[in-house]
């Protein structure tokens, strides 16, 4: 959005609240909801990519050295990645912010 959503007046909205800039969900940082975060044990990781596949927020990305990490702007701390990782390479730890 061109400006923060609490700055819009009713008549400035598009008809039917249509959003013309696609892909702007990235501006909405869902990571604020998190109380836990995943931590990777790279030695246990077999690089299967299951965590990447299962993350409901598509917050997991692959680094240049083919390791897996989460983008904390979007990680909600749901723990699905840790649960699905068969070699238990992911531990959920309290996120102190």
């Amino acid at each position, binding site marked *: 959005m061109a400006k923060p959503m609490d700055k819009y007046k009713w008549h400035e909205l598009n*008809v*039917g609240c249509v*959003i*013309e800039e*696609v892909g702007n969900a990235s501006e909405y940082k869902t990571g604020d909801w998190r109380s836990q975060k995943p931590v990777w044990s790279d030695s246990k990781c077999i690089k299967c990519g299951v965590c990447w596949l299962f993350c409901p927020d598509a917050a997991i990305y692959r680094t240049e050295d083919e390791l897996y990490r989460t983008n904390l702007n979007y990680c909600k701390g749901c723990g699905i990645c840790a649960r699905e990782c068969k070699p238990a390479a992911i531990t959920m730890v309290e996120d102190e912010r």
Partner: protein
Amino acid sequence: MKAIKGVEVSIAASVAAKLAKVEVIAAYPITPQTHIVEHLADLVADGELDAVYINVESEHSAMSACCGSSAAGARTFTSTSAQGMELMHEILFIASGMRLPIVMASVNRALSAPLSIWGDHSDVMAARDTGWIMLFCENGQEVVDAIIMAFKIAEDKRVFLPLMVNLDGFSLSHVIEPIDFPSQEEVDAFLPPYDPIYTLHPDKPVTMGAYAMPELYTEAKYAQEMAIRNSKVVVKEVMEEYGKKFGRHYNIVETYNIDKADVIFVALGSVGENIKTAIDSLKDQGKEAGLVQLRLFRPFPAEEILAAVKGVKNIAVIERVMPAGAPNGPLFQEISTVVHMSGAEVSMTNYIVGLGGRDVLPEDFEDIYNDIVSGKNSELQDEKNFTVIGVRA
């Protein structure tokens, strides 16, 4: 002279949709709407109407498909009744919130239980605040004209809202009436193709129906409220243009014999014709009653109603729905809100008639008139706020 044809009103409604060149129809058959969608299916199957007819497994899907096709930029039509409208209920809000100019012929029918396939206004009154513009028709000709006007109103860039054309189940939908159909050329000249602002198209992707945080929902709903409120001007303009082009003139609020009336009836739909018959008969007996009939129900034409009932002593609001524990029927509550907030001192009474297809006769309205003028209705009102006509005690 023009050819006036005797046609079943349901068939006439589907011919009107064809004249409006609808591009997508998604509907599930339900009595008493069935003949409308069956005939449209025939027209599409026979190649007489170049449209997509989507067979769906329920009204929930019908309205969902309508939202999709309207969002994709197609002129979209559907039709429903009673339980079907209830099954659509959730999606009715989505159509209006997304500002999709879908047109629906709503063939009004009683709601279950007990199961009834017959006409009353239980369905539309349960959906009255879904954000749809609502027109009510008194006869078959009005149904045809309203469906053609409906697209022009709904698709106006100042409006962009879905619109329901209400017609009474059986007492309108299944009767044969003389209908004057405009020609395709005349309709084409009146109704240009649908020109959407946004469409679902990969060349210019947009997001529709997105999530709104508490910071934005109020503004979004207010924008929708202003759109439906301001649509009254467009409804009037379109009715005026239609009258000039086709010779049939409509007003959002119609009046009949109101000037000297002691009692003014206020009503919706086909019952208006019986009230007019009663008014004529009362006139022959030297008694003066009038009728205020709402062609437009949403947005509520408050100013026009006030102007019509100005100075009258008695208003009798006639409606075809059981108020279900409310102090009065929905139409009464709305009329009394605008009348009493204007400061007018007027006696108002509420009559429930014609539930689940019960006959309503002109004599019933003569009785109502006589009761009001003789003061008898005030006795009835000690017991309850509204009076149910014909209930066996």
